[in-house]
Each structure stands twice: as C-alpha cells, then as structure tokens.
C-alpha cells in the first residue's frame, strides 16, 4: 500500500513539488501500475547466469580525451539559455 505520505516523500526525493490534492490520485495510480508490473514476480528466471550469452555486444566504448574545441566557442550560445546569468556564470541562490 502506497500512502499519500509515501508519495510526498518520494516526490521530495525526486525534487518535485506535488500539490496536496494530487497525492491521493497519484497513490492510487501507482498502486494500480505496481499491481500490474508485479506480474513479474511469478516468472522464474532461467537465464540468470547466462546473460552474457545475450549481451555479446555489450562492450565499453572509449574515446581519446583529446582535440578540444577552441575555448569559449560555445559559451555564449549555451549561457544564453540560462534563466539567470551574470556575465559568464549562471546564477543560483546562496546555499551556505
């Protein structure tokens, strides 16, 4: 059972403000979705140790950390998107 209080706690962890009146609906939505996905519990896993058999393409892709672009080339276009900026900084509230 997922209570509206649980929803509130999870939402805060996800940095998401949820209005009080929405909590009830969200807890019943989650309840029904989780009820459905719990079907998985009944499936017995046969290939637990054989996952590499299906994952032959899973390899790490690396790239040389080299050839940087010219410094400052994208600064203006990127900073232009910031809701608040001061010169070449984005502005946030004091945290200390």
């Amino acid at each position: 059972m997922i209570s509206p209080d649980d929803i509130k706690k999870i939402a805060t962890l996800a940095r998401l403000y949820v209005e009080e009146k929405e909590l009830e609906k969200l807890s019943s939505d989650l309840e029904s979705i989780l009820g459905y996905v719990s079907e998985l519990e009944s499936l017995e896993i046969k290939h637990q140790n054989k996952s590499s058999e299906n994952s032959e393409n899973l390899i790490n892709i690396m790239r040389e950390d080299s050839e940087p672009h010219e410094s400052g080339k994208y600064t203006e276009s990127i900073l232009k998107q910031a809701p608040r900026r001061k010169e070449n900084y984005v502005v946030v509230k004091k945290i200390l």
Partner: protein
Amino acid sequence: MDIKKLTITEAASLLSKGEVSSQDLVKACISEIEKKNKDINAYLEVFDDALAQAKMADETRKKGNNSASTLLGIPLAIKDNILIEGRKASAASKILENYVATYDATVIKKLKNSGALFIGRTNMDEFAMGGSTENSAYGITKNPYDETRVPGGSSGGSAAAVAMGGALGALGTDTGGSVRQPASFCGLVGLKPTYGAISRHGIMAMGSSLDQVGPMTKSVSDCEIIYDFIKGRDPLDSTSIEADTGSTKVSDLFDTSNKKHTIGIPWHFMEKGLDESVVNNFKEIIKKLESEGVVFKEITLPSIKYSLPTYYILMPAEVSSNLNRYDGVRYGFHKDGLSGIDDYLETRGEGFGAEVRRRIILGTYVLSAGYYDAYYNKAIAVREEIKSDFKQAFSEVDAIMTPTSPTPAFKIGEKSNDPLTMYLSDIFTTPANVAGIPALSVPSGFTEVNGSKLPLGIQVMGKNHSEKILFEIGKKIFP
C-alpha cells in the same frame, strides 16, 4: 499533384525531371497546414524560412549535375524532442518552453547533408511520455482521419503532419512504440530500428536503454530512404553501431530475391483484448501473403507477455534519472522558491505535466533502496529472458508478425484518466524495445467505425540488423 498522397520517391522523380520545384512542394504543404493545422494541431511551429530553404535546394539542384540526393528539397517534419541548431525544441513541455537548441542532432546533420529541408516541429506527448499526444503542454493533436480520435503517440504530431499532407515524411522517436503506434493510427509506415542503428546525439533522452529515432512515411521505400541516410555509427553516441556491417552480413544470410520468407506468429500473445477488426485484418493479411509464397509458422515466446510490465519498470526508472537535468538553472523554465532546493521543487513541479510527474515518481519508487531488487533488478533479469526467447524464435523464422496496436485509433479522452489502460495499448510494441530488435509498422487496411474510415497497421519484427528483411516483407504487405 496530390500532396496528401505524394511519396518521397515520387516527389524525387518529379524534382529530378524538373516537373515540380521544391518550392512547389513546400507551398503545397503549407497550404494544407494553413487549412488544417488550426484543428489538427500537428505542428507546434512552422518554420518561417521553410520556403527559403526550398529556394536554396532548388538552386543547389540547378547548379549540380544530375547527382542530387533523393532527399534534396524534400520537406520533412521533425518531432519536438530532436534538436535543430538555432530553433526551439521543447519536447512539448512547459519546462523547455523557450529553449533554443545550441547544436544539431546527428540525424539532423545527416538530413541537412542530404539536402532535405525542415518545414516545422511537431507536437508530441510531453518528453515522449504517452500513446495519444494528449499529454502535450501545447494542446492535443487530432487524428486527420477522424478528428474526434487521437493520432496515437508519442510522435502523434509527426504522424498527423504527414497524414494531413503537411510534410512528405517525418522523424519520430520510439521508446515503447511511439513511432509505430501513431504510424498505424494514421495510415503510415514507421520504423523502430535495431537499438544503436541510428545515433541519438541531440535527441532528448527518455529511457536510454530503449529510445531510438525512426522515420514515418507514406511508403516502405520512403522509410528505407530516410533510414539509409540517418543510420550508422556516430562517435558522439557511444551506444551507436555500424548498422551496415550488420546488414551486409544479414543480406548475405537472407538472400531475399529467391528465398521464401518464413514468418512466425505468436498466436498465444493475441488471445485477449484485441478489437475484432484488428484480428480479421491480421488474418486477411496472412492469407494475402500466403498466396504470395510466404510461409507462416506458429511460434511460442513464453516470456513475451512480461514485456509490458518489464517496460513499465525500466522506462520510468530511466526517466527518473534522465529528467534530473531539468533543474531550472542551466536552461528552460525557472520558478523561484524560498531556497535553492525549493527552486528545484517549484520549477520541476510546475514545469512538468501530470504524466511526466507520475513517471518520475514511479521511477524513483522502483529504484528506492527497499524496492530496487523486487522491481528494477527483477525487470533486468526478465529482459534477458525476453531477449533469449526472441533469439530462439529467430533461429526458426525470418520475422515475427503481430498487429501494431490492439485497436484502431481510440477516442480523445477515452483513456486519459486511467494511466494503466493507456499503458496496455503498448502491448505489441514494447517487446521490440525491451529486446532491442528492429520493428516496422506498415498500413494493412481500414476499418469503418461510426462512419469513419480508420487505418490499421501490422508490425513486423526481426532479429538485430534485419531492417532489410523487414522492408522486403513490408513491401509485400503494403506495396
């Protein structure tokens, strides 16, 4: 020239013969958009330089010798979660309302190189979360075949744009069926390629182990043309692969010219919840293909019924981490709170719509310490079972066929209040994303419901890198 029916292949031939110009094509599309977009709401924005782009394409053609690419001067519609440098890209979310892309997605760069032009950006479910395009912050999109019905989703704007004659083709994205299902609802062809076959650099991430870009077109050949232009390994997307190395091998293995295809049908997966019109249409197509020499075989995929629940654990888990980047600091919408942390809560609480919030919360829940093993880890293990089932099946058959959607396009509002009912309409499309295999949806006919002719679609799935085979079979279903 009927712009609603004109394919890219036909347009390219008219352009090369000099019978139409790219400007004619764009004018014809814009005239349809002016007539219909007010009601359909397929486009969030029609680019004011569309005609100027066409003029440039026409000039390029005049200057060049006859080696112009098939896509030169072809107007395409682009889903709003794909970045085009200098243009708005909002993923139909309030949180990115005025965001302007600072670079081109690789697929856009490749299309620009091909000479294609972009007529506008299309509506979608916010951050591609939904199956009906009812979850957009900028209003719902309606189905051009029946405006009381949804166009499907999440790439519903792209589907409606092409179906109403507002573009010759479009790009969508597909995490659990978001290219194939709207293609099916709007009478189009839609491809979800092999995982990694098309670069995702510059595509807004939703579920990174599932997301792919795909073309939406009026014919299978058109779909193949766009796919061939945008596929391939991209150093900027480390999950991308060289689609060609795979497909060259596959085309050797399956010499399609003189081999009879064997198609598997998992009848056990189609027992419940299907509209009668869908079942009848599916059987008719089987009969038609049988008469053309295709061999059908009943197959069993014991774990396939677990694809949808697996998907609805993995996808929200990935959503909850991918959408952390929308913090109101670096770009997009910002709402002030009492403190720094309050800024995040307020910005995200107001910037995200209801479905996005629901999935972030669901994803955070299944990843939380007490439930991680029961949900997320279990889903990861089930995913391997599903892949293994498909692998086994593809040792016996060349492709697997199902309907694309259990029903034709449903009514606006019919499922929007009950998320689980909405999720269940992804039943046939999610397995391909969970397994990473390619799947093509092709139009298979129409059904008449209360006086409206509604399109139906059939899905053909294949093993990794078997897009060529899917196109071959697709052309038989929808010549």
